[in-house]
């Protein structure tokens, strides 16, 4: 079987001046995943490694660069699934870690559960030795500006995003 990998950096509105940055980001991610596959690595590790690259790229809404909630904080979600045995792991409303996808894989492999959320997910991350990072370190200037703009009177940011993805 010849390996194949596809990645995405999110659907929505992409400003033209950032076009090259988006392209460079998805290129780095897909090549990282393909490198894993080319060396005989598993599809599971390939998708995890590709998503880690995307989480580390500040241009994308995941990990570093995540958007802010109504309180100006970051809460992230992630899922991973293995098609071999339908095993899956996920985390939701997770804070203070750089790569939620790594924690999702640990949920899949180290627990009998499929989804850990919020404080429980944080406790599990600590127990697994995932380094804790200040949430502020994940916040970009772009995300903060967007959040501030959405706080203005007559702004309805959540409804406005229905048409953006």
């Amino acid at each position, binding site marked *: *079987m010849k*390996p*194949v*990998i*596809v*990645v*995405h*950096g*999110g*659907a*929505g*509105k992409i400003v033209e001046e950032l076009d090259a940055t*988006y*392209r460079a*980001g*998805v290129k780095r*991610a*897909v090549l990282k*995943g393909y490198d894993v*596959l080319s060396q*005989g690595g*598993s*599809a599971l590790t390939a*998708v995890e490694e590709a*998503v880690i690259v*995307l*989480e580390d790229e500040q241009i994308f*809404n*995941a*990990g570093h*660069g995540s*958007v802010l*909630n*109504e309180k100006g*904080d*970051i*809460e992230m*979600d*992630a*899922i991973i*699934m*293995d*098609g*071999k045995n339908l095993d899956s792991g*996920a985390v*939701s409303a997770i804070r203070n870690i750089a790569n939620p*996808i790594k924690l999702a894989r640990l949920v899949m492999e180290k627990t009998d559960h*499929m*989804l850990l*959320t919020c404080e429980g997910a944080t406790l599990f991350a600590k127990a697994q030795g995932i380094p804790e990072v200040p949430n502020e370190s994940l916040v970009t200037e772009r995300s903060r500006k*967007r*959040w501030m703009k959405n*706080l203005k009177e007559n702004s309805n*940011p*959540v409804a406005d*995003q*229905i*048409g*953006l*993805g």
Partner: protein
Amino acid sequence: TVGAVAIDCQGNVACATSTGGLTNKMVGRVGDTACIGSGGYADNNVGAVSTTGHGESIMKVILARLILHHMEQGKSPEEAADAGLNYMKSRVGGIGGVIIVNSSGDWTAKFSTNQMSWAAVKDDQLHIGIYH
């Protein structure tokens, strides 16, 4: 939101999706990403899907699993993506995008939004896109 799907040399497929969610969302709001069948699904018998878009709409139609269902019925990844995204748009008014690889190694990146950044590698050939 970001995501990946892959098939390896053994024919195993997998998916991964990660997100910061909606900007200015309610504290505690969780969208499609963490929900199996919505933010992603992978089954060696069919293929793997990762989604992005309006989370509540994706959850209403369980988009990733819906697309795999269409593939189980004989549709190609591209046809199944169109069917799933069109259903989500017509039924609940939501738009978004998906990446898919099937168990034969056929892949697609489709979106009903104006743009979605994506990249793929097959046969050592790199493909990248943003616009329709």
